[in-house]
């Protein structure tokens, strides 16, 4: 009897198609991913049942934690122009390099007088820097309300849109801080804004 010969086949599989798909998906996820901005203070946002996602652009976010207020606005051009206008208002001159750095700064919370020095630090130094928050007081013209007003003006002049305002607060934040913030917004006739929340896990 003749021996049955087992045909030997190559064990390798053609990976090309799989590789194509994998990289296609990878490209998609990388492009859609938004770099997460790190909050200068730990902020534990409250949970709620609302399911409206926050818009991706045209947002002004006020982060509140440990009694301090931090400011962030979307768009590099908006940030740069806002800084120039704030500098004009307070009589502080920012160099072109500082303006460039500021336009890439997602979130900050220092008084305007310290901002120049803060911008001159490198990325590591900025991370280690203890930001004191943007000064707010009960007067109508405090620094925070000027920041908000100027950035609203800039967005209207550059993009011809109304800026959306949102508050991102920490769970344990005492109400007076939030009240002060809402007061600042209401003085500018902003009566409608959003609170940032996470999705609540199913109630047990």
């Amino acid at each position: 009897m003749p021996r049955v010969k087992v045909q030997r086949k190559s064990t390798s599989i053609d990976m090309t198609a799989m590789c194509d798909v994998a990289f296609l998906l990878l490209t998609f996820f990388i492009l859609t991913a938004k770099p997460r901005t790190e909050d200068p203070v730990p902020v534990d946002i409250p949970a709620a049942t609302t399911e409206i996602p926050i818009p991706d652009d045209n947002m002004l976010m006020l982060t509140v934690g440990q009694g301090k207020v931090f400011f962030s606005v979307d768009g590099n051009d908006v940030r740069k122009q806002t800084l120039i206008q704030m500098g004009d208002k307070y009589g502080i001159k920012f160099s072109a390099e500082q303006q460039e750095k500021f336009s890439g700064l997602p979130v900050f919370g220092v008084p305007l007088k310290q901002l120049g020095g803060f911008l001159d630090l490198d990325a590591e130094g900025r991370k280690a820097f203890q930001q004191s928050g943007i000064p707010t007081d009960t007067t109508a013209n405090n620094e925070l309300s000027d920041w908000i007003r100027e950035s609203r003006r800039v967005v209207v002049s550059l993009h011809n849109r109304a800026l959306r305002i949102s508050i991102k607060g920490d769970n344990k934040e005492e109400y007076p801080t939030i009240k002060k913030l809402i007061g600042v917004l209401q003085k500018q006739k902003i009566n409608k804004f959003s609170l940032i929340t996470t999705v609540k896990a199913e109630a047990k």
Partner: protein
Amino acid sequence: MAELDTSGGGKHKGGKVRSKKASTRVDLTAMVDLAFLLITFFMLTTTLSKPKAMDLTMPDKDEQTKDQMPMAASRSMTLLLGANNKVEWFIGEPGKSQPTTEGFGKNGLRKTLIEKGREIQQSTGKFMFVLIKPSDKSNYKNVVDTIDEMNITGVQSYAIVDITPPELELLKRDGNY
């Protein structure tokens, strides 16, 4: 790695010397491994960190508005947010009806809102109006929780207003301040 040489060349005796053809296939396994690892990473990070926005409209502080309607006290419910995650509620004007202390959540505030909303709807034929008055001892989470309860129970009209001294006294008396 996992590839057998199937070219089977090199058995020529004499004749022309042919240069051996190298296989043009590259082993892609490691590359695919890496790609899928990165895909997994990006997928997990993008879907998990998507915060939501809760819209909040504050009552206009401008006192010159003319179109203000008087509100019947019988269908207004006041929530006083106190310390230690406690909320006090009463219907009508402060001092005239006794406040009840309650906690947040499914069996506390939500139950009351649904019950009272229905009662007021039946007795007056109109919807309930809720005034949220956070005291200085309440925290941000309490405020968000309260607004969330409004959304869950479908209270159409609510407003966040400042607390008044007599109401603060009520909170103090009941040990929630």
